[in-house]
């Protein structure tokens, strides 16, 4: 592919408000051919510089190099700190998705307070992901592309320790023990 094509891909990625997939770029430029190699070439061109092209869930965007954060941080007010409940809930959703509210509560052993899921959804990191086909048809939640983008993950497989946790059986579906039942019923009373 020509350099002109690369330039076009670079311009699109630069100007876009959201990360772009190879398909997005292909649709925009009228051809899918060479998009991936152009993306790779651009990423390579920027690799060691102040701006990097990074993949987030199959979509690419430009961001400043991570090691420069100390120089840039003071320009912005730091984003509001996520509460511990929020952080745990987000982690549970990310590692178990799609996951229902009851399942999140079973893992945490405590009822989710009203605001917790709202905060995560408002931040755009979590969204409803359909209902589970079981009695009560509970709504499930999953993370969004914005979650991957915000936390700098190329892919859900990039989640720290994902493989180890799975190997240890810690990501298996929550089994319904007598203990779970008791805890959950007490949650529902609240």
């Amino acid at each position, binding site marked *: 592919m020509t350099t002109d094509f690369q330039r076009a891909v670079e311009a699109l990625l630069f100007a876009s408000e959201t990360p772009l997939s190879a398909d997005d770029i292909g649709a925009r430029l009228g051809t899918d051919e060479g998009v991936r190699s152009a993306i790779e070439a651009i990423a390579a061109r920027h690799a060691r510089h102040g701006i990097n092209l990074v993949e987030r869930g199959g979509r690419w965007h430009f961001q400043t*190099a991570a090691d420069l954060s100390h120089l840039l941080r003071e320009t912005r007010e730091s*984003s509001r700190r996520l509460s*511990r409940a929020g952080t745990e809930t987000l982690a549970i959703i990310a590692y178990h998705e799609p996951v229902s509210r009851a399942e999140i509560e079973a893992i945490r052993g405590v009822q989710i307070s009203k605001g917790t899921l709202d905060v995560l959804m408002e931040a755009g990191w979590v969204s409803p992901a359909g209902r589970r086909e079981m009695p009560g048809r509970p709504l499930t939640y999953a993370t969004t592309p914005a979650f991957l983008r915000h936390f700098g993950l190329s892919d859900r497989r990039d989640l720290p320790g994902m493989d180890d946790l799975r190997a240890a059986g810690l990501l298996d579906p929550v089994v319904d023990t007598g203990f779970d039942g008791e805890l959950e019923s007490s949650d529902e009373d609240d």
Partner: protein
Amino acid sequence: MNDGDFLTLDLDGWEGPLNLLLALARSQKVDLHQISILALVDQYLDYLNRAGAERLDQAADYLVMAAWLAYLKSCLLLPRAEQEDPGPEELAFRLQQRLLRLDAMREAGARLLARDVVGRDVFIRPAPEGLATEQRVTWQASLYDLIAAYGLVQMRRVPVLHQIARRPVLSLEAALSRIEAMLGRIGDWTAIAAFVPKQDDPDLQRSALASTVVATLELARRGVIDLRQQAPFAPLMICAA
């Protein structure tokens, strides 16, 4: 069990009995896989005895957990026989798994937050131009559409005219002159059918019959002919007067 351990625990940071259990387990400073569930149960119950009265009396969850743990402990201490299924070892194992799972998720959350977070560690363009998509409509119309539309417009403009199409008829005048012309050649009483011209068009035929009848009535009135009919619906007979 070391009393000092739980006194340093920060209760405000805890949410629910599982979190408390996890905090207690961690305070033993051994691998969660090696933790003694029995010791943990004692710690939990002891903690509730000490702190619960002041701070946990509202928390039903803690008391439910305490009851369940007391039950688990008694099962673990009882002789092995006559145990229900799942056995106490299995229940203890599941509790341990849950603690491990919660611990893993807490760890994972912390690791997530430690990543290069957008807006904190890495930055994206504050106000990108965005990629605009403009919809452009190509309007379609054919020349036929155009002139047909003009025809419609013109038709709407003109006053509506009703025009009755002319239908084939034999006029009264024609019937009169035909009968008068034929009278000289016909001597005796003759049926009216003879005076009606033969027509192919059935409408014209009916018109011819009607006009001929009217013409005979007119000629009879003038005294040119006589009319006779033997019975209703019998043939109308004509004779020169």
